């Protein structure tokens, strides 16, 4: 059984043009599935639908075989401990008025008593925060700092620490490196790759950067105008039967 399965998802906004068109895919345990597309192609909308922030018009979303689409916020809450997210802009994703530690512990304070952590063993909250920061290669002293005192790359590491804190089964990575400079981009991608190996978390890695997606993922989907036009294993990227749009992307990134 797939961890997360989308079946024929449709979504359109009131203007009528479809944002998501017959989107289907399956994410397996511990896998990194890449999703590439230009800005405006609907990939972020898909992320929001998977996270239950927006509702889908048609189709179904299954988590371990259980439908989770169309659930109320309250009914969806138990699933949130399994599906976490890292968003594009880390400065916006951390509350400027809270210390890093306070932001970091949000999911744990909510779900700590419902999950059994395999990776982290800790004496108290502060110790836990320290371990989380170490897991994302940040100095433990940052726990009591405020977001504005951190660089962009450090902030993104902190949001990654928050996402892995309850050892979810899936993390939706929505352009996690797009707002970082080149050196931090490479470092954060490397970190995400190692964390997936260590913790066995599956990723849906959404990006406009085919090279990054190719480096991170075992399977890749290409999205154009709300539809998935191509879906293949990493090794098949350079095959001649790829969709013309995929080939166009490949040419750009060579």
């Amino acid at each position, binding site marked *: 059984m797939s961890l997360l399965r989308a079946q024929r998802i449709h979504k359109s906004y009131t203007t009528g043009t479809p944002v998501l068109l017959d989107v289907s895919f399956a994410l397996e345990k511990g896998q990194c599935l890449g999703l590439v597309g230009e800005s405006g192609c609907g990939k972020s909308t898909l992320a929001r639908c998977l996270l239950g922030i927006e509702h889908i018009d048609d189709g179904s979303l299954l988590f371990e075989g259980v439908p989770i689409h169309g659930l109320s916020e309250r009914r969806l809450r138990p699933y*949130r401990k399994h599906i976490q997210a890292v*968003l594009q802009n880390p400065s*916006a994703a*951390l*509350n*400027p008025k809270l210390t890093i530690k306070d932001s970091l512990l*949000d999911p744990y304070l909510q779900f700590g008593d419902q999950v059994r952590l395999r990776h982290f063993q800790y004496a108290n909250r502060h110790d836990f925060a320290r371990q989380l920061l170490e897991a994302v290669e940040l100095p433990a002293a940052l726990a009591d700092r405020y977001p504005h005192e951190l660089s962009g790359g450090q902030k993104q590491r902190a949001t990654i620490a928050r996402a892995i804190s309850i050892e979810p089964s899936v993390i939706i990575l929505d352009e996690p490196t797009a707002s970082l400079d080149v050196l931090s981009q490479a470092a954060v991608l490397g970190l995400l790759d190692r964390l997936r190996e260590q913790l066995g978390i599956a990723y849906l890695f959404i990006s406009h950067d085919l090279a990054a997606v190719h480096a991170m993922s075992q399977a890749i989907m290409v999205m154009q105008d709300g539809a998935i036009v191509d879906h293949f294993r990493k090794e098949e990227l350079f095959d001649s039967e790829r969709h013309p749009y995929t080939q166009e992307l490949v040419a750009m990134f060579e």
Partner: protein
Amino acid sequence: MELALAGNTSTLRKRLRTAALLFMLAWPAAAAVYAFLVLNYDPSLVSLADRLLPPSFAHPLGTDHLGRDVLTRLLLGARQTVGYGLLALIAAVAIGVPLGIWAGFKGGLADRILMRIADAFLSFPDTIVAIVLTGLLGAGLENLLLAILVVKWVSYARLARSTVLTERGKDYVLMARINGLRPGRIMSKHLFPHLIGHVLVLASLDVGKIILLISSLSYIGLGAQPPAPEWGAMLNEARPYFQAQPSLMVYPGLMIVFVVLLMGLLGDYWRDKFDVRKEVRP
């Protein structure tokens, strides 16, 4: 250069402000100690033999037209004016802020209804509403406080709502949802901290206004009733004796000015204190 200079000026301003704050706090504190140690008068004790006395050791600020000790009445008046003013304010904040956060966060019908009520209240000047309400309910400090509460909660509700409206669309609120936080927890943990600074600034400015309102309504006889030692009422009582003993009006007037200024400075101080970014220098 420019930056360094700006830094120095703001430090200087901060030092001056701290000095002023300390001075203004020290002054009533010293007076209170003095009152506790030296004075032991009943503020309402009428003693016609001692009326309109000039300052002396027994009566440091003299006596009023009924022979009551002015310093005693001024200090007790602080409790009436400032104490009740703060009480009304705290009640207004306690009602307005949660309502505002809730309306801003939920949106929809509840929000629209609340904001129409707020608009209705805001379309009349505070003073008018307070006068009308105390007129209807009957003169007296309690009713005046009720009127102030009715007038003031609206601005806190609006402030809280507008702050929540700008914040709730940001990614960190979305992340809080994704992290499984319940709406109540999102409001208290993530949104409330954004309000504290704004609310304290507005509140410390409002204390001044409320004190003025209590004093002015007491002055025209709608608030505290004689013989209560309230500053506005004291001003009113001293009015006929302005020629003979001008200091009777000067003292309560100065008290009002001092407290209003003090609250303004406090507002300034709080605004800086709750801005966590204050230490960032580009």
